[in-house]
């Protein structure tokens, strides 16, 4: 496909500003001498260019998106309506407080609801994404230990099933990372945890339900062990969708959490952002939150108060589904996952074959041994059926993993169709495995060469190459 730089002609374009109504001036300072090679295209070319790009993009509205750990639920239209109101979009972040009372009220209400759902006492909407919220939460833990004079607490415990962001965030916050083994059920190995905690423990990072889609029933034991050793418990809210309104991290012994408004609270993912990753905490950590006028505050983790328009969408969602709808969404997310799990388990061995939460992990190790068809092949085959594949090769502790998260907003028909597609792929793997290595067939491109992309990086358009 042509790049926008390969379209248009020199001198083409639309005037959006009109004439300047004050005299032009020559400002001082050094001037740009390099030519500015931006696209020179008509408005209709811009329009068609992006329409074509949109046709080459698969969103939640284009079809089923059971991408494990990402909670690709429906993004309600009313959220977009609310976020497009000029009374929200046209407000300067540094306006005097009384001229932005509505914005402040949106944040106050959302923070209150998120505290209630998580069992936390205070919340900051400043972090812009989940990873950013993790970093923020870990800085709270660091600042707390500093303030208490706990100089030696420099280690964060992270289960080996954790998402890569957890150890990366801990490292950014200056901690050493200690990996904790999982037991044969995918749960935290209590003996390993007990052996790992000590006077150097700053805290533990945990998702519950965990990354294999199971709720760790030993959760109170786990958080107790860490607390008794003098550490704090960090809750990664990536999987909150399964238990919101059913159980709260704050009641399980967690001291600090981050949420993903773009997962659990239905705000769109935008092809990779903007999201929002609020940080919540118990009272004793509250003074350390970012953006606070307290001497203990860790400072700011970004300019201004947060991804405000994302907060508007999340509030619209919570106002819509309300007290009854929150646990109802969780239960149906879990029901949909279990329904798919039992319909697939005879062909696709489950990494942990028991009632799961909002997602389950299949291992295609046996299929690969028998037919040579890998989790990647199966995922690519799904593309031809208009289904976004499940998360591949995660968590790392399961071989040939496919992690399926249907979410609560899918119909039973959609789940049944996806089950049939996966069963069909299993059959095809046994009938004609070679063909599966060549899929997909119907997508705009097929299996791009990632190795040469990384070996010989071309990460911007080469204007010179064209002229030459």
């Amino acid at each position, binding site marked *: 496909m042509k790049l926008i730089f390969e379209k248009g002609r020199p001198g083409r*374009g*639309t005037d*959006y*500003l009109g004439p*300047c*109504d*004050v005299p032009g001036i020559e*400002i001082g300072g050094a001037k740009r*001498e*390099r030519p500015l090679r*931006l*696209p020179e295209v008509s*408005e209709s070319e*811009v329009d068609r*260019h992006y329409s074509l*790009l949109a046709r*080459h993009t698969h*969103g939640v509205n*284009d079809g089923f998106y059971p*991408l494990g750990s990402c909670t690709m639920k*429906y993004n309600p239209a009313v959220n977009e309506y609310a976020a497009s109101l000029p*009374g*929200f979009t046209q*407000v300067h972040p*540094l*306006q005097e407080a009384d*001229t932005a009372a*509505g*914005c402040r009220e949106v944040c106050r209400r959302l923070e*209150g*609801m998120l505290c209630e759902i998580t069992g936390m006492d205070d919340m900051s909407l400043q972090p812009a994404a989940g990873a950013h919220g993790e970093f923020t939460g870990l800085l709270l833990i660091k600042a707390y230990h500093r303030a208490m004079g706990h100089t030696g607490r420099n280690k964060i415990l992270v289960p080996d099933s954790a998402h*890569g962001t957890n150890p990366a*965030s801990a490292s*950014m916050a*200056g901690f050493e990372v200690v990996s904790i083994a999982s037991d044969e059920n995918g749960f935290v190995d209590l003996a390993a945890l007990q052996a790992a905690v000590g006077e150097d423990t700053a805290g533990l990072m945990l998702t519950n339900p965990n990354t294999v889609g199971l709720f760790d029933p030993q959760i109170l034991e786990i958080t107790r062990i860490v607390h008794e050793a003098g550490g704090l418990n960090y809750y990664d809210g990536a999987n909150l969708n399964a238990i919101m309104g059913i*159980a709260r991290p704050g009641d399980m012994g967690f001291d600090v959490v981050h949420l993903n408004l773009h997962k659990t609270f239905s705000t769109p993912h935008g*092809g*990779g*952002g903007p999201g929002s990753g609020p940080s919540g905490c118990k009272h004793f950590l509250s003074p350390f939150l970012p953006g606070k006028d307290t001497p203990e505050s860790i*400072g700011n*983790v*970004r*300019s*201004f*108060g947060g991804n*405000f328009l994302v907060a508007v969408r999340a509030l619209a969602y919570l106002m819509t589904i*309300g*007290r009854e709808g929150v*646990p*109802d969404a969780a239960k149906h997310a879990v*029901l*949909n996952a*279990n*329904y798919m*799990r039992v319909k697939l388990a005879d062909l696709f061995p489950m990494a942990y074959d028991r009632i799961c939460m909002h997602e389950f992990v299949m291992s295609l190790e046996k299929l690969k041994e028998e037919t040579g068809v890998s989790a990647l092949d199966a995922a690519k085959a799904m593309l031809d059926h208009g289904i*976004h594949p499940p998360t591949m090769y*995660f968590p790392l502790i399961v071989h040939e993993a496919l992690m399926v998260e249907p979410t609560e907003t899918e119909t*039973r028909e959609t789940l049944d169709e996806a089950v049939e597609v996966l069963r069909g792929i299993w059959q095809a793997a046994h009938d004609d495995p070679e063909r599966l290595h060549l899929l997909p067939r119907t*997508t705009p491109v097929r299996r791009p060469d990632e190795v040469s992309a990384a070996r010989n990086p071309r*990460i911007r358009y080469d204007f010179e190459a064209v002229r030459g």
Partner: protein
Amino acid sequence: MATYVPVTREEEAFMLEACGLRQLDDLYGDVPSSVRLRTPLNIPSGMAEMGVRREMERLAGQNTVFPAVFRGAGAYRHMIPAIVDTVTGHEAFRTAYTPYQAEISQGVLQSIFEFQTDICELTGMEAANASVYDGACAAAEGCEMCRERKRSRILVSESVDPKILSVIRTYAFGRDVPVETVPLLNGVTDPAALAPLLKEDVSCLVVQQPNFFGCLEDLDALTQRAHEGGARIVVHCNPIAMAILKTPGECGADIAVGEGQPLGIPLSWGGPYLGFMACTAKLMRRLPGRIVGETTDAEGRRAFVLTLQAREQHIRREKASSNICSNEALCAMRAAAYLAAMGPNGLKQAALQCAAKAHYLQKALEEAGLAPVYPDQPFFHEFVTECPDAERLLAALRKEGILGGLPLAGKRMLWCATEMNTREEMDRAAAVVREVIRP
């Protein structure tokens, strides 16, 4: 209440039976009863769309939308062509995930590749990433790119926006890295004060162009000084000003970062915005976050993929160049669509109009009695004046539907004008000033 759960009662019973369960609660056998919520959440009951809209409209109505804005300080009101909303409003762009599955994500991937190219063009640098959370985060991540084992100290000019400095300090607290500030002389970074601060443990110098007070820094001289001291330089630059000012790349900078909000993103009370990051080819593999690269597919066709992933958290875990998983893809697409619509001439016109109007406003305010604080310094679209009674002035301007400048310490005010401000508005603002500060 309204619901987005489509499953009917009958289907629910059928599905539970398929799972060998009797009721929804049976799904939660692993949750210890002692942590199960006994009472409903203490949040309001759900509402149908009509009620939600009414309430949201009421909340939005409690904010003041100023017809005239003379405040910037990191968030700027610019003309956004309607086409930007049109093309970025496609449902697929809005609802897609990070483009892991390249075959069905070529649209998002290509738009990011085009954004990366735009950012390289604007800054004069050789490599750019897919964007980060905002401009302040971009600056903090830029500092992290410069950190070496023996060189970790960060120098930040006092002319850098205090919000950016605050974020740099927070990130530095994480890495246990010292941060020092460089004093100013007449509104710009003082080169003489810089020299003694450039000790052997300094990793980088951070400056802003134009700086927080609107003044233009001498990037050539600062870059030279930093390099002579063995440090790198991170330039936080305004993307619209880059259409007319000497770029960080032309000045020999190592890293250029900035806030992309001026490029087609509404004020939105502070977010979502867009951090952009660019660097020399040499530093490319130190960039944090997502990067899109061009390659070919199984049939030899042009294709785009997320690349250089060996830097990233899902592979390197605690050794990754950052913990970032996402970018601000939809905001980056807005910026790319804005730049495509405006084109090189349109962007230059926007920059020239900003400069012309800011200079007109500065003159008008000066004539009305607000003296400029740095009269000899060249500036782009922001400037500082003396302002004896900011509170009274802002209140009087507000009555006219005008958001005045940002009050600064020491009875000063930071003003901004963009192409959006009309001559009539500026004259009216000056008239209010004359009225308020009349002895």
